[in-house]
């Protein structure tokens, strides 16, 4: 339980930096799946909250992710978290005609002679936040 509360505190502090930079409104989904809305916000938070970003390790690993870790590690002030169940809104998964599974895509590939395009991700492509 303590660990869960701790995570909530850390999560709050990670994102709290946004308020200081005038980004307090909800992020709206735009379908450049990972790197426009979601990642842009992350980048801006981290750009203003971290000193000494290492050059050459970038969008998702260092400039965003590592400084995030740094924020989390160094902010320990307690904040009470009250949570409601979050429902990730469903969105269209772009204009690609996706097969429902890898097996189905492979069957289609046998007939068409085309290669299989497998897009693997954390989260779901048809979720707003993915």
């Amino acid at each position, binding site marked *: 339980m303590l660990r869960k509360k701790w995570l909530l505190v850390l999560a709050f502090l990670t994102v709290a930096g946004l308020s200081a930079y005038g980004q307090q409104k909800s992020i709206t989904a735009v379908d450049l799946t990972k790197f426009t809305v979601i990642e842009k916000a992350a980048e801006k938070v981290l750009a203003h909250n971290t000193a000494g970003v290492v050059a050459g390790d970038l969008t998702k690993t260092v400039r965003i992710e590592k400084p995030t*870790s740094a924020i989390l590690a160094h902010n320990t002030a307690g904040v009470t978290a009250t949570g409601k169940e979050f429902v990730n809104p469903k969105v269209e998964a772009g204009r690609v005609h996706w097969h429902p599974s890898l097996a189905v895509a492979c069957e289609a590939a046998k007939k068409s002679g085309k290669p299989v395009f497998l897009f693997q991700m954390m989260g779901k492509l048809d979720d707003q936040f993915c």
Partner: protein
Amino acid sequence: MFSNDDVANFINKNFEPVWESVRPVPIVRIDFGNGTVLTRTLHGNIATYVCTADGRVLDILPGIYEPQTYLHGLNQFRLLHNYVARAKDQAATRLKEYHEGQIRALKENETPPQFVNHAGVTKAGIERAILAVLVPGKEAQQWNATSAKTHKPSSQLKLPSNNDIANWKILAEDTQINETTRRLQIHEMLAAAGPVQPKAVTKKLYKEVLHADLDDAYLGLGQTLFAGYPFAKEELGREHESK
């Protein structure tokens, strides 16, 4: 990315596409209590595989790319599939040689060998007319420069106007890392593994190339997250009591 017409049309025309989730993405959501809610993901990542019809991995693009490079990579994947398929019984050997050639070039900081379509301009205009040939990097660059003059995308693949140049710069830099460091790791991984199913390399890919340990509840960030955890002793004591 997949709402971009050029990208979506290219995928629809040349591939049998499918997406799958390897695990939920961490989501941070702050309700400020005044109607303002901030929601975002943290530490997510992606990978694009090209596979044969029997589900064997031919190659992988790691992480996020700027659209033009992504499209170029997908075109290379399309040609790779043709190049390997034509080898028939020698497909595994040809694939291994392809990966080894890429490794050699990347280690020497040279432009890696690339595929060009030798089906000819007239034939290439016909759907699925492909004769993929692997040529040295410099030769491919000349070929692509000539080809680019005659095949322009319908749009310029620009981000929306509210995205600034800094974002492009970061994305371009990330693309560069993907195309060098991470691609080298992937070629080494696939050269060693051979033509395997995606699940055989997914965890290794995410852990070693994309730095997200799928077997770890905290994606490998636990040590950092809890480095200053003030209740560690208390929690440890409770665990002992419960045993």
